[in-house]
């Protein structure tokens, strides 16, 4: 019998702890237990046999840390087969009658993934892949990925298992006392991610005792259609007479786990502190229990690295602003690699209350494959909303999905064969809820029935890829009502039919409907209300529109989805009072309300970011020339703060607040110039934190100030190899390069970068800074200038350019 067959009908008993048993047999603390597979195979076989004798169906190999970060390739090739052999031999030696299997154990890598740590996602996939391949070759029956406390690393391990063997894969996470993973994911978020990627069972192990994890296990049972595994510790550890003891005994442990087996747990055993005696007690306590048939909750769920968002009758808002279509400022940011602008668009929408962010970076003249994946990574480093990956290019979609830390929404597929053949395999592999447009080779059907028919075809085709209709969300295409009088009616009718007759969730991009009409907000928000009434599950909207937000909150209150109208009232309190727009007022009486120049200077001096932006906008729309605004207001204010900083009357955070206010004034200038030729900028100044170093606050401060002073800064980020710095300097013929290092260990990388610059870009001046640097150090490594802070860097850069 294969493990999959066994799992489909039977409860599966796992084994218990290994580490403490090995220590009891003489493993010294600090020594790698995996080596005992080679040096003491008899001990491992004996422990595995004891577990089989106690009733386990599955022995977990002694390979928790068997990966390339801890062992050489040669050692792994010996350890992993030896570990599988020990377990296999024990299965043969044990006379217990039950079915017996060997699980290849895969624990965490021991390193944290980027951006929190320095291990790249693909490197993590590679190192798990090596372990999985060796285990599968050695004849393991299944893969057990366990004790993972980070969702991203869990994804890397599961992807590696799926790509490198055809064995069943069980994934178990270590949840903390707060019911979440260390990096923040809830059980529901993990269910979405792991189910989407095709795990065969999911669960919780380690960290706590059975009672403390009851809530986590219940949440897993309620959220997944997969079998659930549970392997808790024997309670919490205590030290008694110099030995670690656990505070939950065999009988209590068995009763506690058994009560969760009654609730539906299908695979069970123990983790730290449990022994064959615990497993024997658990076997006895569960002898007569049959697995509960798990009711399959077919929910439509997407997730981020912290939480899941479920589509339901309570509508979900998707922010549409990360999209270059028709937005000159956004296009300019994409072309210039100005990621910070894109990130701030995302965070602003989050503050406006959207539940998901649509991410579209498609422009004809950018490398969308790289840009989309990079943008997804950058966004998920700063924003915990689930993302909707929006691209027409399947290659870009795959690159972004692979790196996405959760279960994404995919935008989109349609009824054309070519589209479905490209998108469904990606959703099958990486998971995802797919937005399906109701159009096909024949175009957009003019009737509701025609669109519902396309939806049916898409559901059937998805099913042939193993994708259920709960992972499809239909967009019945809002067309422009000014061009086709029946456009909105057909869209709404198709929406209603798909929602009620086909039982699928729906989504609409709202704004299209009003193209070409005045007061588009009124049309959009009314259409939005109608769509909601017809069963709209998710709306792609501009959350900056007060009308749309009003409609959303009013709808929820009217449909009884907002207890005491609390959310409606709270939202109303946050809306700014409705006054005429400053621009209109300015047009009326520019002379009177024009803020004086010194007011903008004051806002910058006081570090008031929003105020500086308002004032700059007002000045610009009243006709102040953009460059005059910078020279007359921004630079003098910055100079005042900069001098204060140098005299130590202004502290760094205050300098930065002013710099941020100045930047927001620049942002107003950029917006007013979007689409036109931008001022060239001085420089360019190439900036990087050197290879091996991941600290970038100091570097970012330097960039901010340089930009304030009108430099064009090419920021290569952190952990940048010397070659990359030099290539960029050569390509741009940059006169200046700034390098930052925080640690003594990375100064050699800085030195190597300077050496290479001297060789290949002798015209370029180098300025270095960072916590460990001193003038002497800078001289030693051949830098042209040592800068103790960001202001000094600005002064030096200005001086260099003046002498040219």
């Amino acid at each position, binding site marked *: 019998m294969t493990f999959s067959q066994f799992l489909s009908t039977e409860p599966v008993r796992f084994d218990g702890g290994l580490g403490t048993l090995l220590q009891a047999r003489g493993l010294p603390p*600090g020594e790698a237990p995996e080596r005992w597979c080679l040096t003491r195979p008899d001990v491992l076989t004996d422990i595995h046999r004891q577990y089989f004798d106690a009733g386990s169906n599955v022995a977990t190999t002694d390979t928790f840390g068997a990966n390339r970060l801890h062992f050489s390739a040669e050692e792994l090739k010996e350890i992993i087969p030896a570990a599988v052999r020990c377990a296999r031999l024990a299965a043969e030696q044990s006379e217990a009658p039950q079915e017996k299997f060997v699980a290849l154990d895969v624990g965490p890598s*021991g*390193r944290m993934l980027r951006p*929190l740590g320095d291990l790249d996602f693909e490197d993590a996939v590679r190192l798990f892949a090596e372990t999985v391949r060796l285990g599968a070759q050695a004849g393991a029956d299944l893969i057990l990925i366990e004790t993972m406390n980070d969702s991203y690393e869990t994804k890397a391990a599961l992807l590696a298992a799926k790509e490198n063997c055809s064995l069943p894969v069980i994934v178990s996470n270590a949840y903390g006392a707060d019911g979440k993973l260390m990096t923040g994911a809830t059980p529901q978020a993990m269910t979405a991610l792991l189910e989407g990627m095709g795990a065969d069972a999911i669960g919780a192990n380690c960290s706590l005792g059975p009672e403390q994890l009851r809530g986590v296990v219940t949440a897993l049972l309620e959220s997944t259609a997969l079998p659930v595994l549970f392997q808790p510790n024997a309670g919490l550890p205590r030290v008694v007479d110099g*030995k670690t003891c656990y505070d939950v005994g065999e009988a209590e442990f068995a009763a506690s786990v058994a009560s969760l087996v009654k609730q539906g747990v299908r695979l069970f055993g123990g983790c730290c502190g449990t022994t064959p005696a615990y497993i024997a007690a658990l076997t006895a306590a569960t002898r007569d229990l049959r697995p509960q048939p798990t009711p399959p909750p077919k929910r439509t769920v997407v997730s981020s690295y912290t939480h899941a968002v479920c589509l339901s009758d309570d509508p979900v808002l998707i922010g549409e602003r990360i999209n270059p279509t028709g937005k000159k400022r956004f296009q300019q940011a994409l072309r210039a690699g100005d990621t*910070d602008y894109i990130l701030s668009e995302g965070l602003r929408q989050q503050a406006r209350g959207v539940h998901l962010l649509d991410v579209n970076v498609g422009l004809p003249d950018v490398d969308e494959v790289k840009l989309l994946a990079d943008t997804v990574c950058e966004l998920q480093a700063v924003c915990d909303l689930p993302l909707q990956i929006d691209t027409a290019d399947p290659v870009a979609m795959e690159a972004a999905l692979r790196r996405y830390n959760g279960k994404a929404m995919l935008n989109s597929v349609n009824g054309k064969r070519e589209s479905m053949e490209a998108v469904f395999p990606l959703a099958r592999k990486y998971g995802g809820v797919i937005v399906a447009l109701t159009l096909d080779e024949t175009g957009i059907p003019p009737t509701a029935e025609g669109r519902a028919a396309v939806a049916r075809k898409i559901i059937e085709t998805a099913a042939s890829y193993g994708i259920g209709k709960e992972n499809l969300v239909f967009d019945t295409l809002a067309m422009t009502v000014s061009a086709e009088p029946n456009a909105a009616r057909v869209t709404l009718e198709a929406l209603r039919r798909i929602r009620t007759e086909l039982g699928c969730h729906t989504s609409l991009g709202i704004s299209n409907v009003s193209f070409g009409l005045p007061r588009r907000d009124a049309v959009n928000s009314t259409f939005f209300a109608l769509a909601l009434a017809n069963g709209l599950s998710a709306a792609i909207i501009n959350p900056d529109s007060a009308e749309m937000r009003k409609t959303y909150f009013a709808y929820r209150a009217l449909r009884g989805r907002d207890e005491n109208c609390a959310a409606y009232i709270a939202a109303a309190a946050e809306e700014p009072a409705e006054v005429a727009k400053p621009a209109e007022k300015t047009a009326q009486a520019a002379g009177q309300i024009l803020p004086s120049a010194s007011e903008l200077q004051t806002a910058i001096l006081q570090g008031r970011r929003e105020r500086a932006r308002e004032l700059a906008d007002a000045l610009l729309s009243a006709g102040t020339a953009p460059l005059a605004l910078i020279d007359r207001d921004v630079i003098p204010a910055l100079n005042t703060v900069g001098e204060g900083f140098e005299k130590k009357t202004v*502290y760094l955070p*205050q300098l930065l607040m002013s710099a941020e206010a100045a930047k927001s004034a620049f942002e107003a200038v950029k917006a007013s110039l979007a689409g036109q030729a931008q001022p060239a900028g001085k420089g360019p100044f190439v900036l990087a934190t050197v290879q091996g170093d991941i600290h970038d606050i100091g570097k*970012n401060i330097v960039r901010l100030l340089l930009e304030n002073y009108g430099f064009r800064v090419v920021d290569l980020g952190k952990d940048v190899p010397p070659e990359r710095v030099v290539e960029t300097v050569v390509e741009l013929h940059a006169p200046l390069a700034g390098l930052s290092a925080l640690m003594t260990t990375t100064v050699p990388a800085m030195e190597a970068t300077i050496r290479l610059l001297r060789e290949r870009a002798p015209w370029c001046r180098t300025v270095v800074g960072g916590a460990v640097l001193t003038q002497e150090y800078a001289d030693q490594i051949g830098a042209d200038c040592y800068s103790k802070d960001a202001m000094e860097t600005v002064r030096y850069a200005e001086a260099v350019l003046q002498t040219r």
Partner: protein
Amino acid sequence: MSAVTQTRAFPSPPVNRREILRYAGCAAPDARLDALLDDCLREVQGAPLQYGVCFCRLPLRLSGETCDFGAFSCRSAQLAACLRDCDGVVVFAATVGVGIDRLIAKYSRLSPARAVLLQAVGAERIEALCDRFCETLPAETQRRTRPRFSPGYGDLPLTVQRDIMQTLDCARRIGLTLNESLLLSPTKSVTAFVGLECAGQAR
């Protein structure tokens, strides 16, 4: 306390604003700095920190600059001086978790002023946690204790981090890992040795 590794969670120590401002290099804050710090602290409370420590007691044998802890040893004249007249150490690893790193990463892109203050908040938090933990040691070990001494201080090499990580099993116990450059992730974390003076040692 014994050679067995233990894990302990701590409640959030009280916040010391002056310390935070000191870490941020602001001797005399003005109203807008105070307001920004209030904002940062509110946000830190919204992304709860996790105060975790794992530790164990190890024997100590000093010979010259070599400090031998049984499970591992290292060479450092300064650590050896700090541990003179001790016959044991408590080695510990402490972290306040990834939440503050996420906030710092976010604001280092969006508002360096906030990022600088959040760095300072993180530094104050982890030091406060270490202080809390070290305060418990004299009672727990029944010994006088020495000030904590961390890898990277003076001549104590960072490479000793590897031994500490392995001995304490930090990744599994408190989610603390080491990166390729021997730095700790999460970044607001500390590892250190605390010397235990020989019983009856006069001060």
